[in-house]
């Protein structure tokens, strides 16, 4: 295989380019940002209590759009995110539900007393069982669930005002529209 000088330079440049584009791609790829395996699936069947001890099950997620925020009183980042939820008013057809993950209901109640309670419902999950069913692997996490109880979207980490406007609101709007047209 005889290569001209030009060809050889071309090959070298190409190799380096491929190598660096691989590096560039992995630089922007966060392996901790996993796509949820449950997107497009209905919420798991469950039995749990809210933090006051009232029994709940999966029907909580039927009939309304739900923003489900996974938090815990022991999670410092959640306390930061909490300010956002306190200051956010949900659209009238959206319920904000919390999943109190691997946390005692007493501690969660105390946390919500101190920091304010923006949630319509707070599900207690002291052993993280329901968390496993939702595929939770870190807190905070937030899910968008449609009126039929199907998980549509998930984000790991703190929800911010900007993200809310750019990512969450448009998705909520489109759920409202598709629901109204059926």
């Amino acid at each position, binding site marked *: 295989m005889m290569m001209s000088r030009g060809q050889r330079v071309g090959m070298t440049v190409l190799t380096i380019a491929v190598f660096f584009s691989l590096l560039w791609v992995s630089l922007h790829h966060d392996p901790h940002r996993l796509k949820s*395996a449950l997107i497009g699936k209905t919420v798991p069947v469950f039995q749990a209590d809210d933090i006051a001890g009232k029994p709940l099950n999966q029907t909580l997620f039927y009939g309304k759009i739900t923003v489900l925020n996974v938090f815990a009183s022991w999670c410092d980042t959640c306390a930061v995110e909490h300010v956002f939820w306190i200051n956010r008013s949900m659209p009238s057809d959206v319920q904000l539900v919390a999943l109190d993950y691997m946390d005692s209901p007493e501690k969660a109640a105390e946390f919500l007393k101190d920091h304010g309670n923006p949630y319509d419902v707070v599900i207690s999950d002291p052993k993280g069982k329901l968390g496993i069913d939702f595929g939770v692997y870190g807190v905070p996490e937030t899910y968008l669930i449609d009126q039929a109880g199907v998980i549509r979207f998930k984000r790991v980490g703190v929800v911010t005002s900007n993200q809310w406007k750019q990512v969450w609101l448009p998705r909520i709007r489109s759920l409202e529209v598709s629901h109204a047209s059926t």
Partner: protein
Amino acid sequence: MRRLSVIVLGVLLAVGAYAADHYPFKDPKKQRQFNELTHTFRCLVCQNEDLAASQATLAMRLKDQLYEMVNKDMTTPQIKQYMVHRYGDFIMLKPPLVPRTALLWFLPVLLLLVGVLILWRMHRRGGR
């Protein structure tokens, strides 16, 4: 070096003893199934560790869950399905061979072939 290996061995044995204490099985077959399973799944928090090695809270809870499922006589494929359903293929330390992961599995062989081909051509040219 020798002392180091003794320490490492001691720690490994201690971890093993801890696991056995924490998740006791009467049936050695179930014990084996449980041990194999904890080596099959990835801890999603410290991602290069299996569940057996990880001390992260999530890994602990997942091990509790595995223990419960093994005791409920669930088979290994059923348990794998349970985990993948919730956490996706990524929870398997060894990725499954599906079209989406074909490149991952075959790229090394492919690259080796390309290398051999290049060497062969260089050799032929050098021979002339």
